[in-house]
């Protein structure tokens, strides 16, 4: 089957977008409350669901056969490099401002989830339209 023909693929893109939305909601919630003290229950639940979606996506992705894995990892590693810099910058800003350890840990977790989720989304979005690897 040609790679550009419509294939039925798992909803990796949709789950990745939902993950971004969860990270954004958690980030906005925390940014709106900082620098004062606030309950971390909502952001932690939010982060847990986001991590769950990323792990689900990893499982769904690993089951796709055949797939253009070379393209997936080519795009993914460049995107990872870019988003590690962006997430690193934001972690640096919060650390520079002496954000308390609890919120800092949750924020770092959200930014790490963000930095893993986006390369997966970009890699999948490109690889789905490429010819699958011959080894698959």
């Amino acid at each position, binding site marked *: 089957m040609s790679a*550009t023909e419509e294939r039925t693929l798992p909803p990796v893109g949709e789950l990745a977008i939902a993950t*971004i939305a969860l990270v*954004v909601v958690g*980030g906005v919630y925390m940014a*709106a409350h*900082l620098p004062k003290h606030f309950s971390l229950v909502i952001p932690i639940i939010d982060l847990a669901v986001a991590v769950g979606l990323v792990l689900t996506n990893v499982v769904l992705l690993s089951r796709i056969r055949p797939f253009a894995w070379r393209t997936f990892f080519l795009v993914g590693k460049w995107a990872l490099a870019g988003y590690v810099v962006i997430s690193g910058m934001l972690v640096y800003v919060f650390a*520079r401002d002496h954000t308390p350890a609890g919120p800092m840990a949750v924020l770092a977790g959200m930014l790490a989830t963000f930095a893993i989720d986006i390369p997966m989304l*970009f890699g999948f979005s490109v690889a789905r*339209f*490429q010819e699958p690897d011959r080894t698959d």
Partner: protein
Amino acid sequence: MVDVAEVAPGAPPGMAGGPPPIPEFQIVPLRGLILVAIVIAALIVAIAGNWLWALDFFHVVGGGMWTGIDLFVGFIVGPIIGRMSIAARIEFSTRFMPKMLLLMPTLVTMTLAAGWQLARHVGNLDAGYHRHGWLVASYIVVGVMAVIAIGLLEPANLAVLFELKKPQPNPELIGRLMKRFIYTAGITGAMQVATLVIMTRIAT
């Protein structure tokens, strides 16, 4: 990811019925990475030094360009691309999209990192700040734009560029992805109007 594209084989470029010509291009312009590195380094220095002028500069310049480009692409360039022929869209995309791939994430990082630090520096982050609600509104607008830009616009941008690297690109797929790019650029452009209202409210 930075390979040079081959011109599509088959009928001569531009010939009726033949594949449209594809100019040589780099998906990630390597020379642009040097500029990005300089900007990020300068931003880190500004944050580390907590220099008010430098933070203001990065936030205002980054935010102004981000807003201006989103509005311009969403309402001026987007509709023009939508009326172009497939061949013209391809030529435009190969020159325009790689630049956007570096420019927009850099502007967004500049604006947000410097803006957060600036707000903290001048005391706007405090819940007691009389326009704190407007600040939270700006987080929400930026958040929605981030979901649209990262979740829909950027993947479409990348998929188009990779499709154009193929010996036989699929014009139907490119057209569909470009339509998504144009619509999402329009939505983020419209949301930037809200950013302008919020930022001028905060600054007044």
